[in-house]
């Protein structure tokens, strides 16, 4: 779960970089950058969830 969370973070970042490199139109760039940020937020959520479960097991 933690590994997938990290991979999502990095994937989101590459999506943002790809938007800058591949598109010239501002609208497309916005959409892809927003999508990349969304993927990153999912990654943060997954990492937090993984640690919450670990803490629960410890209790």
């Amino acid at each position, binding site marked *: 779960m933690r590994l997938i969370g990290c991979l999502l973070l990095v*994937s989101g970042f590459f999506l943002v970089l790809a938007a800058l490199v591949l598109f010239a139109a501002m609208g497309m760039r916005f959409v892809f950058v927003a999508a990349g940020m969304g993927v990153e937020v999912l990654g943060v959520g997954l990492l937090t*969830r993984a640690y919450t479960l670990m803490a629960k097991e410890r*209790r």
Partner: protein
Amino acid sequence: MSLVLCLVCVMLAPFAAAGLALIHQGLGRSRSAAHAMLSTLCALGIAAIVFVMVGSAWAGFAGEAAHSFKAAGARWDWLGAGQFFPGGVGPGSADLPEYTRALALCLEMFAAGLAATIPLSGGADRWRLAAVCCASAVLAAFLFPMFAHWVWGGGWLAQLGASFGVPGFVDAGGAGVVQVVGGLMALTVVWITGPRKGKFAEDGVPAAIPGHNIVQVLFGCMLALAGWIGLDAASSILFYGAGAAQVVWVAINAMLSASAGCLAAVVVTRARYRKPDASISANGWIAGLVAGSAACAMVSPEAATVIGGVAGVLATYMIEIAELKLRTDDPGGAVSVHAGAGLWGLIAVGLFGRFAEGSQAGHLLAQMVGVAALLGSMLPLIYGVNLLLNRFVPYRVDGDGDWQGMDIRELGAGAYPEFVVHADEFVPR
């Protein structure tokens, strides 16, 4: 650039760390107060030495030697290539005189120290001193300098305009470079160390562990204001060419955003809990300062007030969600206040900033790219480094230390020896 004005602003910057130190230890338990203050001093000291000796070479200066590569038709300038162990700051040039280089180095040294003190709030009452020292060293040697180079040292984020036709990423007061980097470090420390014993019951219901000295917390907020004004003003002058008149507006905007953040937190906590919560309101003040620092020299006073107010509300709800829903134990609210409000502040630059060049949409896009870089590249890097460090120097104190407190466990003496000691604090439960 006014040398004296910039010098005065740089010299104010350490007050930000002093204020945060008071806030951290006040929001922690009394049995860990001395440890919290000593950890802050050690983090500041190590960050200063390591940054000047190693990190400053990687932070670099705009227009000077840097490590870069070419990909997709663009130049990606990702790390400074200055001199390690500098005997001085060098002779300077017409574009970058020696005193400007010296002031930038001094400001970044204080900023690295400030970034290193932020995670102490997240790891309060359980993060071991040896681990604090190691993490501070790595932060000041590599993590902070790398992002500082991207933004303040002429790196790829600052050069978005030249490479991709959008305006460069803007962070005038270090909301991203200092606050979010420190806040993300705090997040990983919170994850790795886990909650304090007794914080969550078997069914996951959190117990309130109130700060032991709220007066110091509130005094820390006032002290931090002076430091933040210095940090915001000095970085605006050194990295964004702000003039004397703009510096006055930086101070006004900092005060307005902090005030709005605090008042928003007072109103929200009054509405939700019937009485204002002093510790969350203090966090609202700092959240306002953090969010306001990104656009400090580029927004109107009205916009600064809105930015601070939103940051205060955001920090209040994030603290509650982190504890009640996500079951994370962040005693000082560092993740919400520094990372959360900092990210909002960076986006707010694109929404409210007034710029001579570039479209508003372009600036917003550049700010979103910067936020994505923080979450997508800096967070995994910071997380990986902390996981690795935790293997060699365990972050969390052992079970006995949890109940004894960090003062007795790690320092051998408490901060308040004349306090009455409750027997249950020394009996493992």
